[in-house]
């Protein structure tokens, strides 16, 4: 190998750690995929997710943005049932429900994913810090976590959403602030068990500092848990976004499924029996949430050794 050096007094070796590491990563990715593929429901969830993701990305090409504007829809029939030019009908202002559905998927997926990433980032940072450093750091952070945990979630979210500006970014922030404590507790518990392992003692005996122990031993053992938690937290974020939007606390300038439901409710779509107005948004939420749950459950089962026979 290129990195063998003749000037050394020890025998050169043909072993290349870098190549080996990549080979190992490829092997474990292949292993992961073959396990995942064995779970039909998870595969179905993945396909549903991919369809929605493609739809969200391709929204401008599928459905022109003008369809969302009441001004541009002024000539359209109102409360038109699905058919002739309006695949999902129109609403009380003559806007295309199909356009709202397509564009709404963007907001739901984007808010769901980014709020989850932020939630997990806060939760993981707090959990790792509290679990690893222990003592007063742990006590302080855990009291803070408990404090957030006992605050009733919806009232806090409503208060925050009404105090802050009505923007998508603030919706993400509100969701993250109210939902990180669960992740923090979960990660802390895992860090506490990993910290007790003898190989952490060995690393310390080898001269490792805290950064090394966290990077090489703690994080790799917590990462699968975080990843599984991530996929399972997305549906919660999406539902929260829908809730906030339905309560009129979302971004008023963007079409989201929650906002569609709110407007349909306010316009009296239910009493008019205009099912085409609210069913697509509701079905979209249910499908995305279910798809994420199916995928997340499968990932959790594959990555979390406690859910797998024989361990990792």
């Amino acid at each position, binding site marked *: 190998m290129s990195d063998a050096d003749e000037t050394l007094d020890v*025998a050169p070796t043909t072993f290349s750690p870098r190549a080996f590491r990549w080979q190992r990563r490829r092997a474990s990715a292949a292993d992961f995929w073959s396990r995942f593929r064995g779970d039909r429901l998870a595969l179905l969830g993945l396909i549903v997710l991919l369809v929605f993701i493609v739809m969200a990305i391709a929204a401008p090409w599928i459905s022109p943005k003008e369809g969302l504007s009441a001004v541009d829809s002024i000539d359209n029939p109102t409360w038109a049932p699905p058919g002739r030019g309006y695949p999902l009908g129109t609403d009380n202002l003559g806007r295309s429900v199909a356009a709202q559905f397509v564009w709404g998927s963007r907001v739901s997926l984007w808010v769901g994913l980014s709020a989850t990433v932020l939630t997990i980032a806060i939760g993981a940072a707090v959990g790792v810090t509290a679990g690893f450093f222990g003592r007063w750091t742990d006590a302080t952070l855990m009291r803070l976590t408990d404090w957030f945990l006992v605050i009733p979630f919806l009232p806090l979210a409503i208060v925050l959403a009404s105090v802050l500006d009505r923007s998508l970014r603030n919706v993400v922030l509100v969701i993250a602030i109210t939902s990180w404590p669960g992740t923090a507790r979960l990660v802390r518990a895992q860090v506490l068990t990993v910290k007790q392992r003898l190989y952490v003692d060995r690393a310390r005996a080898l001269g490792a500092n805290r950064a090394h122990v966290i990077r090489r031993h703690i994080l790799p053992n917590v990462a699968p848990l975080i990843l599984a938690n991530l996929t399972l937290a997305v549906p919660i974020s999406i539902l929260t976004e829908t809730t906030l939007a339905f309560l009129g606390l979302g971004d008023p300038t963007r079409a989201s499924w929650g906002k569609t439901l709110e407007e349909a409710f306010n316009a009296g779509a239910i009493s008019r029996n205009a099912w085409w107005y609210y069913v697509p948004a509701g079905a979209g939420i249910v499908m995305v949430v279910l798809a994420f749950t199916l995928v997340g459950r499968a990932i959790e089962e594959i990555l979390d050794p406690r859910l797998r026979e024989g361990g990792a």
Partner: protein
Amino acid sequence: MSDALLELRDVSVTFSSRRGTVRAVDGVSLDVRPGEVLALVGESGCGKTTLIRSILGLEPLAGGTILVEGKPVNQRQRTLRDLRRRVQMIFQDPTGALNPRHSIYDAVAEGIRIHGIEGNEPALVADALSRAGLRPAERYMARYPHEVSGGQRQRVLIAGAIALDPQLLLADEPVASLDASIRGEILALLRDLVEEQGLAIVAVTHDLGLAWNIADRIAVMYLGRIVEVGRAEEVLAAPQHPYTRALLSVVPEMERVEQQILTGETPDPSRIPAGCRFHPRCPLVASGEAERLGILGRCTGVDVELVQRGDAHWSACHALP
């Protein structure tokens, strides 16, 4: 004294629990010279593992000092890192001590990376593995701990430790978790490291027979204290402390001595008895020998210290002259 590699001066380690403070190690003084094998013998719970963990700074000291080559060990990160290159440890449970997610290569390379040792990393790892008896090294590098046997895992730990070229190796029950057939090989490997590389070893064991196999000197520990220390052949052939004699009498190879089974459990280190801490289990007290010698009052009331009785042979017992 200054020629000692490791000096322990009145070292204490305490743990606080809900029931109060536990003195796991209670005033231990000990020297280890370069290239020497010292066996630390005692029952489980006597503080021997805690003592060697404290040498590496894995347990904070409650009192006393530890000097490595005359320099005191403290909890400062930089001193600790330097210390942890010159002193290395191998653990009782090699399975638990190896991260299951790391390959054997990574496990051995870990110390090399931490200390930024110069040189070609794969070559250094290969060298350490083959010195630890895993040859050809290439065959083991790409494996994971669960893919090799227990004895090989212990060799991986030894390779990881000697990759740093330490002067002192702390071995915590190095063969206790291994099959009898593998024990001899690992002991021979440790002995070779001492003879070929001038390594000093402090080996913790509960097995006097093992101590007899590898040790130059033996220190017998009871309830956080050293009760007898001396050259291995002297301690084994002419044990002075009644506790050492009791331990020795149950070693199967020692046929000539009458077995003395100690009564009672190892006392609780959170409630250390007054006087000689061994007196509630001491055969001399139980048989009335102490009373006949007129020292019973001292046994139950006066703490004993190590006293030199013979050439470099120390023991702590009121009944000895």
